[in-house]
């Protein structure tokens, strides 16, 4: 589904990603953990080219994103992204946030798009907020709308960039619950997260990143209970 080969990325002189390769299978849920500054978010943002890579290749469904001839907009339509700070469109209602891309990019008719948006709102438990503007939503509600907005393009995979990191603690659960449902439905997901409980319970595989490299990866159980690399051990001893 997603394949990354020897990815490098730097900002100025700072090397953030120093050669990452990985494959993510269809229906797989991969959680990326690691200390801040380890390049997790940058890695995720490279996967749908919000950051231009210095070198390396990225394939999604066999199409090479890093090839300049690839229509990046077409591929982004197939990969949903959820941001730490939600990034809902404040000048549009919840419903319009969700229908904007399907109507204007996919050319879906308005009625159909709205029906689908209501269905998605039902899924994330926010039907009653359809006509409300983002400013009137709580953080957890905003993030659930953001997930619905990404799902409205019927993506083949979803990328989550620390989706609960800017939420008040009592709202983390409602967002994780939605993500868990999504995982159970078989969505391919890459989740950068600090929620170790979620990674352990929902993740099929965990990648531990540090200083721009994947230091250790494996099934969540063994990786959390019996980390092999000293850096993984040091990190987990601090957060668990």
């Amino acid at each position: 589904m997603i394949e990354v080969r020897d990815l490098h990325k730097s900002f100025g002189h700072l090397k953030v990603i120093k050669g990452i390769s990985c494959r993510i299978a269809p229906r797989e849920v991969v959680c990326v953990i690691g200390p801040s500054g380890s390049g997790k978010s940058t890695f995720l943002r490279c996967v749908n080219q919000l950051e231009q890579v210095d070198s390396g290749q990225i394939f999604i469904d066999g199409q090479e994103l890093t090839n300049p001839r690839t229509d990046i907009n077409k591929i982004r339509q197939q990969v949903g992204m959820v941001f730490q700070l939600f990034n809902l469109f404040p000048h549009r209602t919840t419903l319009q946030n969700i229908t904007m891309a399907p109507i204007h990019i996919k050319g879906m008719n308005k009625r159909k798009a709205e029906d689908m948006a209501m269905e998605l709102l039902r899924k994330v438990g926010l039907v009653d907020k359809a006509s409300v503007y983002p400013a009137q939503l709580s953080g957890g509600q905003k993030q659930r709308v953001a997930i619905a907005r990404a799902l409205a393009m019927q993506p083949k995979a979803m990328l989550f960039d620390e989706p609960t990191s800017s939420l008040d603690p009592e709202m983390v659960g409602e967002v994780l619950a939605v993500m868990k449902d999504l995982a159970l439905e078989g969505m391919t997901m890459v989740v950068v997260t600090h929620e170790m409980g979620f990674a352990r319970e929902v993740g099929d595989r965990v990648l531990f990143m540090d200083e721009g490299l994947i230091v250790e990866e494996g099934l969540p159980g063994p990786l959390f209970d019996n980390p092999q690399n000293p850096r993984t051990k040091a990190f987990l001893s601090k957060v668990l």
Partner: protein
Amino acid sequence: MHAAVLNVITGMSIYEYLMDIRGFVILTSHLGYLLEGALLTLKITALSVAFGMLLGLIFGLFKMSGSRMLRFIAAIYIDFFRGTPLFVQILLMYFGVLPLIMDKPSPIEAAVITCSLNSGAYIAEIVRAGIQAVDKGQMEAARSLGMNQVQAMWMVILPQAYKIVIPPLINEFIMLLKDTSLVSTIAAEELTQRGRLVYSTYYEAVWVWGGVAVIYLIMTKVLSILGDYAERRLATE
């Protein structure tokens, strides 16, 4: 003239001077004439604002474009029109540039063209600042949904930027309305030029120029009230 000179010589107080019935009669009897001039001022301003916004949007986007060429063109345009006096631009346009490209340009055409180009340069900077004030995450969210640069700009960024842009834009309109007085120099018969014509007939400086000033003040005040209203409406949306 005689009245004014006499008043100074005889040492009438300002109060007495203002009570001088001659100046009052001249102003009121030429009020319609001056207001026609004010109407032309408004027309020149409105047209220049409309064209200026279009130019400002285009060159503001050029200034932020990925293309070095477009950025260069925008920089030259903005530098020239912000870096030289409007007065000089009007003279250059009316006597120099326009005669080369059109037959007998009218002063009003020259006024609208010059004021549009001038305000376009200022508005380009306002547009650029407004767009850059929109959170960077908005563009990323739009692009992540598969919108191209133009779609994201049109559907997501600009609708948010225009609220930010309204106050400085109103400010620019007010400046432009006042600056149209400079086109009196090429004898476009707007408010200032008509004031000059009335003044040079009767030499009632305080009454005539005072009246002209008050008419400008009313126009700019109405503009700023409209601006406040627009700002409030947008804020509550």
